[in-house]
């Protein structure tokens, strides 16, 4: 006998009207929740902490891991709580014998395909699978382990280890929905289902932007950055090398997460820790951010009214550079030629700074600490060797690798003192600091452009309209007698939509900032991972706080910048500046670029003949 379930009928109508409440019972507790709530949310509201693995709110609600299953009265089989809605009068049990059985079995099955060598895993202690298994107390796990054993190039900045993949599909979803890059796909079906580079291709042949969002959204250690910590140890052990480390602006909001320092961790203790570790000079990437503004801001004034009709695009985000080169080749000519702050600083260190220190630039080891995976690739581009012929940046560590570095030395963070950076490249402005948040580069550039055009400082926070977490922001600001139309996008899917609209002529701007990661570098793919949490908002807010408390808030006010130009570069866009601080964005190629080139080559077919 089948009867119509009036409750579900009502619930669905309620959704249409919105805001209706339903009453349900969770583990004996009655509560009232909005009708469109998932069972998971209702259970959590009732204090029942249901474990999840594949679930990511609004991004991956596919109920694939079957770890969040619960028992609903009136139904023999269990339901996934993450993607099913509550109903009026529903009676839910989250720890019934059936639920215990299924949850244990499913986690055991996932473990049977998981290389559980946790002691050597970068995610040990921060792994959702480890947490869930530990919580369930699966001490007598006996299923045979069968691993996928797919191969992966060890030198690529992003590492996929399918022996740790639990096929939750999160990486596919983030790459598709948030980053519009479509790198990951299901490459085998049924019981041999694998998640890998789409179509079984080599990662070198697809347009991975290296944003690292798949890493920060992976529940296990299946995705991580290439670990370069050993190269840092080697450099520190080499008595002939002078080790210089630069630290990116957003790192001040996240490096101390492991020790509970949160967004206000700041730079002082980190500078102290790195000195104790043996670095000879600790310098501040904020300075290079200010330098970027001087160069890019000057470029902007020259680009206004460009023939192409396209706006000037920022170039500080290497994942965005990889994206625009791969997908919008027609826009590359309008991307700023200014290097990213990391690369400007690298070139500065092995030229001007080496001179100041009286050191041989070939004996400088230039390390940078970045919230980013793409920066690892950027430092390796053949065009990034402008100062002395060696790579301007020798090694890039993500914030996660930095954390491993500190933990390996058992640094007692509580005992660290606040220490300043090494001068003269140690002082940045608030404008440099906000580079780490979406809208920050735009705001910093506008502050300086305003000064360059109007001859006086901008009012405090007069460009605040470009802040915030909207995916595609736009604003119009007066600039002298002109009106500057600007747009800011973060998250590559937003950037994709923006570029499409620009190319089709639907929208038109003068200046566009793009950061690949949602929220900007504060949400970067090299940041510490907190599964299920997006911390970019809080970290971004912290950056604006640091900005507000800065001695100088505009790049042109920075004495270090003033000194650099006076002693070395003369002025923005000078010959020396062009050589060291700017780059040819077409000097290296994304797969889409060389594939298009090969296909368009007139005698491509001939040249392939033996």
């Amino acid at each position, binding site marked *: 006998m089948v009867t119509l379930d009036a409750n*579900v009928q009502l619930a*669905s*109508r309620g959704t249409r009207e919105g805001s209706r409440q339903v009453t349900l019972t969770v583990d004996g507790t009655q509560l009232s929740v909005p009708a469109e709530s998932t069972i998971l949310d209702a259970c959590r509201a009732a204090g029942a902490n249901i474990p999840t693995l594949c679930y990511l709110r609004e991004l991956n609600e596919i109920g694939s891991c079957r770890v969040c299953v619960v028992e609903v009265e009136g139904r023999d089989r269990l339901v996934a709580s993450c993607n*099913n809605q509550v109903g009026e009068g*529903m009676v839910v049990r989250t720890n019934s014998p059936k639920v215990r059985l299924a949850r244990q079995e499913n986690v055991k099955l996932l473990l049977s395909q998981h290389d559980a060598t946790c002691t050597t895993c970068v995610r040990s202690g921060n792994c959702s699978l480890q947490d869930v298994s530990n919580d369930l107390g699966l001490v007598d796990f006996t299923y045979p382990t069968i691993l996928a054993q*797919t191969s992966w190039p060890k030198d690529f900045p992003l590492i996929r280890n399918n022996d740790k993949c639990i096929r939750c599909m999160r990486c596919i979803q983030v790459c598709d929905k948030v980053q519009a890059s479509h790198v990951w796909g*299901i490459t085998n079906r*049924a019981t041999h289902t*694998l998640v890998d580079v789409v179509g*079984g291709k080599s990662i070198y042949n697809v347009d991975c932007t290296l944003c690292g969002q798949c890493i920060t959204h992976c529940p296990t250690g299946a995705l991580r950055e290439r670990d370069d910590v050993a190269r840092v140890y080697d450099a520190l052990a080499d008595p002939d090398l002078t080790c210089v480390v630069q630290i990116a602006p957003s790192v001040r909001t996240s490096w101390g997460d492991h020790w509970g320092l949160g967004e206000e961790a700041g730079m002082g203790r980190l500078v102290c820790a790195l000195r104790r570790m043996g670095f000879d000079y600790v310098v501040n990437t904020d300075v290079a951010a200010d330098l970027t503004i001087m160069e890019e801001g000057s470029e902007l004034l020259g680009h206004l009214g460009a023939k192409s009709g396209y706006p000037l695009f920022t170039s500080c985000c290497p994942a965005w550079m990889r994206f625009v080169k791969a997908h919008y080749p027609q826009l590359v000519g309008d991307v700023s030629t200014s290097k990213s702050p990391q690369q400007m600083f690298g070139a500065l260190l092995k030229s001007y700074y080496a001179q100041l220190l009286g050191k041989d630039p070939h004996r400088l080891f230039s390390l940078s600490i970045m919230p980013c995976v793409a920066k690892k690739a950027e430092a390796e581009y053949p065009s990034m060797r402008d100062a002395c012929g060696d790579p301007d940046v020798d090694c890039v560590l993500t914030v996660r690798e930095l954390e491993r570095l500190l933990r390996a030395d058992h640094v007692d963070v509580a005992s660290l003192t606040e220490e300043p950076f090494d001068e003269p490249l140690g002082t940045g402005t608030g404008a440099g600091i906000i580079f780490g948040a979406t809208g920050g580069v735009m705001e910093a550039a506008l502050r300086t452009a305003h000064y360059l055009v109007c001859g006086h400082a901008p009012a405090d926070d007069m460009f605040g309209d470009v802040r915030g977490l909207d995916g595609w922001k736009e604003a119009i600001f007066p600039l002298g007698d002109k009106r500057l139309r600007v747009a800011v996008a973060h998250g590559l899917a937003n950037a994709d939509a923006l570029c499409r609209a620009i190319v089709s002529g639907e929208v038109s701007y003068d200046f566009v900032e793009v950061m690949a990661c949602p929220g900007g570098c504060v949400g970067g793919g090299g940041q510490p991972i907190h599964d299920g949490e997006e911390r970019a908002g809080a970290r971004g807010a912290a950056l604006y706080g640091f900005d507000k408390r800065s001695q100088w808030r505009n790049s042109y006010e920075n004495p270090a910048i003033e000194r650099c130009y006076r002693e070395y570069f003369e002025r923005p866009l000078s010959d020396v500046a062009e050589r060291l601080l700017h780059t040819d964005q077409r000097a290296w190629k994304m797969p889409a670029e060389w594939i298009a080139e090969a296909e368009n080559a007139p005698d491509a077919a001939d040249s392939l003949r033996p």
Partner: protein
Amino acid sequence: MARFHLMERTAEQQVMDELHASVGRRLEVSSLAPCPVEFTMSFVGMCATQSCGKCTPCRVGLRVLRHMLSDVLTGRATMGTIDDIERLARGAYLSSDCAIGYEAGAMALRAVRGFRDDFVSHVSSRSCFAGTAPSVPCKTGCPAGVDVPGYLALVRVGRNADAVRLIRKDNPFPLVCGLVCEHPCERNCRRGMVDDPINIRALKRFAVEHEGTPKEPVRAASTGRRVAVVGGGPAGLSCAYYLTLMGHSVTVFEARHHLGGMLRYGIPAYRLPREKLDEEISWIVGQGVEVRLGEKVDGESLSVIRGSFDAVYLAIGAHADKKLGIAGEELPGVESAVDMLRSIGNGKMPDFSGQRVCVVGGGNVAMDVARSSIRCGAERVYIVYRRRAADMTAQDEEIEGARAEGCELLELNAPVRIEAGEDGRVASLVVQPQVIGEWRRGRPAPHAADASERHIPCDRVIVAIGQAIESAPFESLGIPTSWGRISTQTDASIAELEGVFSGGDCQTGPATVIKAINAGKVAAGNIDNYLGFDHKIELDVDIPSPQLQDLGHCARCETTLREAGERSHDFQEIELGLTDEEALQEASRCLRCDHFGFGSFRGGREIQW
């Protein structure tokens, strides 16, 4: 000690029988697009369970084969492994003692050869060759991709008007399809794994009959572009409908005096009542389609039309008859199914009172003609077919309906000639009895039996062996054809003639209503793009979330027919729709594959196209 024992079905045997039945049901649900290598491995494994273990190639060979196939899937194989698999499968086929082994070998051989690209892809890149992701089965099975779980969910909660609107997003003929769709969706229905597929067609009919006043769709702002549609059948009208919604101005040129094409001139009224057909067509036309009846378009007028419209869609259908090519086919009293159904479609009902009618053919049209003949007063109706009834291409319910209404099936009889009586009219159909034999091109072929010819005395012979396309007039204009069918590119455009598109029966050969509807839909989208637009057909209907209550096993509600004795005397509709009670139960059986399973990850719902 007894000499024999009565065969008793043990409890184990009963479980085994049930499991066998379940496997059969699972395999019938054919839409899952499995990985060919994994499928082959599992199939070989299943075959191996049937081995008695006596002979080497089957006992050992199938097991080794399965391991080698597993190696291909797990990255342990080389290209050489593929050759080894082929060699081993061949050995099992060539040398097994019984069918258990040699048929398994043959199947594995067919797989490794037929899926070679897939095997190579697994070895070289650890990946399936083509990434056909499994999707919502019914929706995948529907040529027009109608959101079946969506509208079933709406029917279940009584929102029939929304259900019909949702159907019209992909198919402007919900009423017609509710009555006559061949429902390929049901073949794929995952509910078939549990008990029986959902009666999707009947629920569509139910939704339409309980729709109330139809809601008008949203029409985009006028583009000022003009499109001519040649042919007012399901393909042409679907194309016209969607182009109209996209804001283009559409004119349909129809050669006959009424719109509908084969819906009117092919499908009898007892299956598709004329007033209902008219109702649906006038609703479609009412969205702003201009219609010019009685205007036959040939090659010459087509080029004139092309000159005065921005694009043309050619959907002339397949309305010419096919000849048997036997002596006596020209005699008075011999006619084609197309001619007979056309005159009925035009409202001219033939009078077969007291006559004996031979219908030649085994497809749905043959059944339509036979059943119409009964209704026209024929005393006897024979359906003459050269293969077995089981080989007929007509749907089972059509054959069953014809039989119930008194048609006689004369299977395994090949027409040889038609003989005239003294009055010069048809007197008998001479047939040669056949024996069914070996398989040719996917179905068994008959050959002449060692028996003498038979005379079937009759007053009429109606030939229903297929339709042809009147494409010759267009060939002169440079429109390419192949076997009489108009050749298009995959986007429905005709390569040689810019701005001209074609689809429906004239492009595919005689096919189904729903295929024609999809052809029109595809053409509409591509014509829109051709005209420089990218209009989307979309609908903002929120779909009820799935019920979580258990349904358990529950059999399928079928539509019923009026009594054969009563219905065979008139052209009134024969099918009775589901009752409210039945429709509710049937809609509640839906497993909601848009939400449960892969649908929640990919392919569950397309908001627009």
